[in-house]
């Protein structure tokens, strides 16, 4: 009963905290640019405002366009639910592992791209084409990170990976370092941040994610935006969960430990958001075709991580 309760709480937590993390990133970025910036809570207001508006849908769009925001939102939410944040004692732990998580994000991307193509506009296609191009390298890199971690820990389940790390089976392994580097690169790409995509741009021709959702409005747009925020939080949580899990509550811990886990998670998310904002402020966006080098590099890094395991395992 208790895991179920925590599971529900955790499910609500990830959806509730996502706009805050995005708001924090935006605020720090604004600060770094010498602006005052909007409050961290502004994304909530934005989403609320969008929710109140009517949704306008293009004449040429099909039913797929209607359901996509729900599919995307639920898929990302589901993925975020799988991932342990404050505790590893989760009801959803056995239901899906990292491969399934990648695939769930793939579902969200698949449908977002289709929705981009649905209205029959040039920009939607532009975004969809670029998104799938980026994903075609990012997703394998993510899978390879999973690969190297699972070779190390003999599991692909995130909760068990956390257990494995916390149990001290793995120290500062070279492979872990390489895998983390790869995951950081993938996370930037997958959560649509600079230097891959610029969520704040107004230049249609340079957009990726924004171009796909250009035709959305009202509640549908709110869902798409919320899904994007949740995706960003998810990747922060993933990095935390795989590489900085300390502080997380474990099965059998008493309730206060859960609060500690919560506090630790929030602190780590905040810290990573600040780091992300700082990094974003000091780099320009890449040329589109340079992304292939970047993510190809991430893929190779993850491959190296797997290869390096053999040397250390042979010790």
């Amino acid at each position, binding site marked *: 009963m208790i895991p179920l309760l925590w599971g529900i709480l955790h499910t609500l937590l990830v959806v509730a905290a996502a706009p805050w993390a995005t708001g924090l990133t935006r605020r720090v970025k604004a600060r770094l640019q010498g602006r005052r910036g909007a409050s961290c809570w502004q994304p909530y207001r934005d989403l609320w405002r969008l929710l*109140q508006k*009517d949704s306008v849908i293009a004449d040429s769009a099909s039913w797929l366009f209607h359901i996509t925001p729900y599919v995307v939102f*639920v898929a990302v939410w589901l993925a975020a639910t799988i991932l342990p944040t404050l505790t590893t004692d989760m009801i959803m732990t056995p239901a*899906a592992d990292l491969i399934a998580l990648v695939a769930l994000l*793939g579902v969200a991307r698949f449908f977002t791209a289709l929705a981009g193509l649905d209205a029959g506009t040039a920009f939607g296609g532009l975004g969809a084409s670029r998104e*799938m191009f980026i994903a075609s390298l990012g997703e394998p890199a993510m899978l390879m990170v999973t690969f190297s971690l699972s070779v190390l820990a003999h599991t692909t389940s995130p909760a068990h990976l956390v257990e494995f790390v916390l149990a001290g089976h793995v120290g500062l392994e070279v492979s872990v370092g390489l895998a983390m580097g790869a995951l950081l690169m993938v996370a930037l790409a997958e959560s649509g941040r600079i230097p891959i995509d610029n969520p704040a741009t107004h230049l249609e021709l340079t957009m990726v994610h924004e171009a796909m959702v250009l035709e959305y409005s009202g509640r549908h747009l709110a869902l798409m935006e919320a899904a994007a925020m949740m995706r960003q939080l998810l990747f922060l949580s993933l990095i935390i969960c795989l590489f900085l899990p300390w502080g997380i509550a474990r099965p059998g811990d008493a309730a206060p430990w859960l609060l500690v886990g919560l506090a630790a998670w929030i602190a780590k998310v905040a810290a990573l958001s600040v780091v992300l904002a700082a990094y974003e402020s000091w780099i320009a966006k890449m040329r589109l075709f340079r992304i292939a080098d970047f993510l190809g590099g991430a893929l190779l890094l993850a491959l190296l991580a797997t290869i390096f395991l*053999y040397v250390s395992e042979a010790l």
Partner: protein
Amino acid sequence: MVIGSAMIAFLLLGLAAPLGRRRPAVAGLVHLACLPPSLLLLALGLMHLAAPPGTPPQIITLPLGLPGLAGHWRLDRLSAFFLLVVNLPAVLAGLYGLGYAPHLPRPGRVAPFLPLFLLGMNGVLLADDAFSFLLAWEFMSLTSWLLVVADDGNPEAGKAGLTYLSMAAFGGFCLLAAFALMAADGGSFDFALLRAHPGGGGGVLAVLLVLLGTGSKAGMVPLHPWLPLAHPAAPSHASALMSGVMTKVALYGLIRILFDLQPVLGWQWGFALMLLGAATALTGVFYALMQRDLKVLLAYSTVENVGLILVALGLAAAFRAYDQPALAALALVAALYHVLNHSLIKSLLFLGAGAVVSATGERDINRLGGLLNRMPVTGACFLAGACAISALPPLNGFVSEWLVFQSLFHAPSLSHWAMRFGVPVVGVALALAAAFAAVCFVRAFGTVFLGRPRSAAAAAAREAPLSLQLAQVVPAALCLGLGIFPVLVSGGLASVVAPLLRVRLPTALLGWPWLSPIAPGAGSYSALMLLLTGVALAITTVLVVHHFGSQRTRRAPVWDCGTPCALPEAQYSADSFSQPLRRVFGRPLLAARELIDMPAPGDTAPARFRLEIRDPLWDGLYARLIRLVNRLADRVNRLQSLTVRHYLLMMFWTLVAGLVIVAVRPPL
């Protein structure tokens, strides 16, 4: 008994069909008549699979075959499983053909061969000696060739048929030689005897020939070029069978020989198979990504999936060689799961493509678009197929992909360094192939079914007739079912694999809804849990959004950044969609070049764009081979105009050479 009657039914149907070739309705009837025997075989396969473990295989010996040799037929769990794989799509194809075949340009050239084709494929599955196997195999090849060239008005089909025929002949010859080598030591073509003497005779060369023979039929790189020519040339339901089923029959041959008849292979074979599979998967999906013809695209996607299965088979062989039967069973289950999935998905997609083609007359996806609004059932089913083949949960494609990756992730435990380095590289290839597959099907579904129509034909499309719809809805539902209840399927597959590897894979260590084949903590997947949670979250989302937000939806002209443009070209074409990938990977792989001629500003001359794509494999291997053969043929041509004395001389020398070989050859 049952098998025999079903087989005879196919045979009679095939023989009877030409009688009514003048009437298109007869073609439909023939397809209808194919249903009962297919259903019968399907039920038979299911029954055999459902039988308790330890049930012996059914063996039938018929006085058919080479003089002095009986024809051996056998139904074991592997055959039973493949009966399922063959006859389920066969039922769908029959259903589909019922409504579809009468509208073909030449229904009389299709109807007789379909039952014969089914006969051939089922025959391969049941054969238990080399002669019967090869007979059925060649029968399958020949009838499928006849289906390819069914549309005699199409010169492309003629060329495809020629390529296919030569490739089939090559494959058949390889298998023949392989069996000859294998039988050389055992002294028998009977599978039972071969099974009794594992590791006998032939060795490396035999395995290589088996690989070439079955690989060429399955579409293994570099023996695949015939496949994207031949599969799409046949009528759509035959394409579905060829692509979805016949490749699986070829893989059946591979599994039968490698895991049943010749189970003593070094890990090197598994390694080679893995690398070949990875190359096949990547090549297939990358070519699929570049195609404009919907059916060719699907055919290339078949190549990709065959690659995936080959990787799993290679892993299984390697695990077995390293004496890790549990992991070998996992890999083999993954392979078989994907065999089943792909046969369903690819049938579904080809049937959908057929519906699109017959509704619009258009196979070029750059001239389609917006069909989801006009063909909702076909569109929804195709979407299900696209999701499934892109390995999206909770559909079935994901389960088999998950299993393949799980077995792959445990492969680094194998101790040889080549394996340790090779496996991650294969992992990268598979991950790339999976991601490309998603791109490919977003592109295909997006350009065909979404957006605005790009041609008048696409704008005037109508939904397919009921039988066609039914033939698509059933596999789509099955895709979902096989995805949601993976434990049931993998449990069944574990029983198929058990006799081959002598170990039974535990598929649900965590309990019923969780697929967890390796260890309780080693990663598990439960589609049902995900689906239920997802539904719960979806309901919550809908309730919250509709309670707190506006519920109104307005329809309006497309916004398009304030510049709606009515031209159909003002949306991405399929070529444009895949251009970034073409630009990054196409340059090294396909020597793809974009030639852009952009006039200076103010110049009103047209700008020009030309794309040059060349297939290095075709140029480098096949084109050279063809030239060589042509040159040889020219030489040989001279033989036709020799005198009688020359002919006699040649016969004499051949005789002497033969005698010398016999004399020199060491005794058996």
